[in-house]
C-alpha cells in the first residue's frame, strides 16, 4: 500500500491577553513601529455600496463581555466580489479591502467595524448565499480562533434560502447568526457559551 504523506497543520495556541502588541500596537499606545494598525480601515471616500456600522460584544459563559478579544472580518464588496487573488470571478472594488481587524474596547468590550453591506456570493453548487460577513475571534482562553458569520435581518427571504443557515439542525439557534438592525447600524453580539451560544463553524 502506498502511504500518503502529508504534513500536519501547525497547532493553534491562544492569542493571549496581549494580542494587541503584535496586531494592533497603536491601539494600546505602542506607537512608532507601524504607521497604522493593519485592518483598521476597510473603506475610503470612493468605496461603492451602502455604508454600515457593525457593533457588538463577545460574551463568556457568565455573560461577561471579553475585554481582551480581537476580531477580524472578511466579506465580499457590494457587488459580491472578494478583494483577494483567489477571487476568479472578476475584479473587486479596489477601494474596499474586504478585511477588517478590530480589538474590543478595553473597558467596555465593544467592537466596531465601518464597512459596506456585502453583495451575495454563490455556494459551490450554484445556489446563492445570503449576504453575510465572516468573523474570526481570538482572545486569551480561546485555544483556536472561533469562526462564525453574521447575516442581515432585512434579508429574510435570502436567509431562508441560504445553504449554510439551512445546515443548522436546531432552528432555534439560527437567530444567533442574525444581527439586529437600527438604521445603518447592526449589532452582532457573540456568545461563546451558554443558552444563547452563537453557532461557530468548522470551515
Amino acid at each position, binding site marked *: 500500500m502506498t502511504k500518503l504523506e502529508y504534513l*500536519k497543520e*501547525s497547532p493553534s495556541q491562544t492569542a493571549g491577553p496581549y494580542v494587541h502588541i503584535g496586531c494592533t500596537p497603536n491601539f494600546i499606545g505602542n506607537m512608532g513601529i507601524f504607521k497604522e494598525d493593519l485592518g483598521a480601515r476597510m473603506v475610503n471616500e470612493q468605496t461603492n455600496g451602502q455604508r454600515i456600522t457593525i457593533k457588538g460584544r463577545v460574551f463568556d459563559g457568565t455573560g461577561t463581555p471579553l475585554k481582551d478579544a480581537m476580531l477580524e472580518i472578511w466579506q465580499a464588496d457590494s457587488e459580491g466580489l472578494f478583494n483577494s487573488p483567489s477571487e476568479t470571478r472578476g475584479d473587486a472594488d479596489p477601494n474596499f479591502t474586504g478585511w477588517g481587524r478590530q480589538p474590543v474596547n478595553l473597558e467596555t468590550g465593544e467592537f466596531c467595524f465601518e464597512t459596506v453591506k456585502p453583495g451575495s456570493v454563490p455556494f459551490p453548487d450554484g445556489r446563492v448565499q445570503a449576504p453575510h460577513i465572516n468573523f474570526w475571534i481570538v482572545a486569551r482562553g480561546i485555544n483556536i480562533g472561533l469562526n462564525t458569520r453574521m447575516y442581515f435581518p432585512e434579508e429574510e427571504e435570502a436567509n431562508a434560502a441560504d445553504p449554510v443557515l439551512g445546515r443548522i439542525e436546531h432552528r432555534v439557534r439560527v437567530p444567533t447568526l442574525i444581527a439586529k438592525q437600527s438604521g445603518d447600524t447592526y449589532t452582532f453580539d457573540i456568545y461563546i457559551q451558554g443558552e444563547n451560544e452563537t453557532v461557530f463553524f468548522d470551515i
Partner: protein
Amino acid sequence: MRQGSEMSKPTTNAGPFFPRDRNWHPQALSPNYKTSVLRSPQKALLSFGNTISETTGPVFGQNMLGELDHDLVLNYAKPGESALGERIIVHGHVLDEEAKPVPNALVEVWQANAGGRYRHKKDGYLAPLDPNFGGCGRVITDENGYYAFRTIRPGPYPWPNGVNDWRPSHIHFSLFGSGFAQRLITQMYFEGDPHIPMCPIVRTINDPEAIEMLVAKLDMNHTVPMDARAYRFDMVLRGRRSTMFENRMEGN
C-alpha cells in the same frame, strides 16, 4: 489602504482547504488552562464545505512593510541604541500540508522582553520594561515561502493560572495564507526550555508530536558569529484541493 495594488498573482488556485484535524489542535475546553473554561464553545461546531467566502482571503504585499518591521532589536530603539538581551534570528519555511511553500504569507510576531515583561498597559509583572524594545514585528514570506526576523530571546514569566505557573520563553505568531480559512495564531517555543512540558497552555495540545512542531531548533549554521544565535522555526498552513474542473490544476 488598497490591498489590490499590492497583491501578487495567486500561486494556488482557489480550491477548498483540507479539513482541520480538530484533535491535533488544542480542544477549546482545557480546564488546566483556566480561562478556557468560560471561553470555550460547548456545542458542536457546524461543519460545511468551503465556499468562496472561506477560500478567499486578504493577501499583503512587501510594500506594506517598513524598513525595520523585521528587526525587533532596532524597531523601537532610540537611534544608536538597541534592545537588551540575547540577540537571535528566527527564520524558517512556511509550507502547506502538501509541503508546498506558501509565498506572500504575512507573519506577525509579538513577545515579552528579555525580562519577561510585555509592553502592554495590562501587564504588571515586576520585571522592568526595556525602553528600547517594543515587542512586535512582521515579515512576509518570499516567493519560496521563507521568512526571517531578528529579535531578542524573550524571558519566561509567571502568570496567574495555578499558584506557580510559568510560561516558557515564547514568541506569538499570527499567520495569513491565501484564504481566510487558513487564519492561524500560534506560539513558538525554544528547544531545551524545561518549562515547555509544564506549561498549561502548551498542554492544551494533547499530541507530543504536535507540541514538537511548535519548538524552534537552535540552528548554529545560521548564527551570526559574535552577534546573534539563530533558531529555525517552520510552520505549516492548511493545504488546498485543486478545483478539478473549474481551474487548470497548477503543478499537476
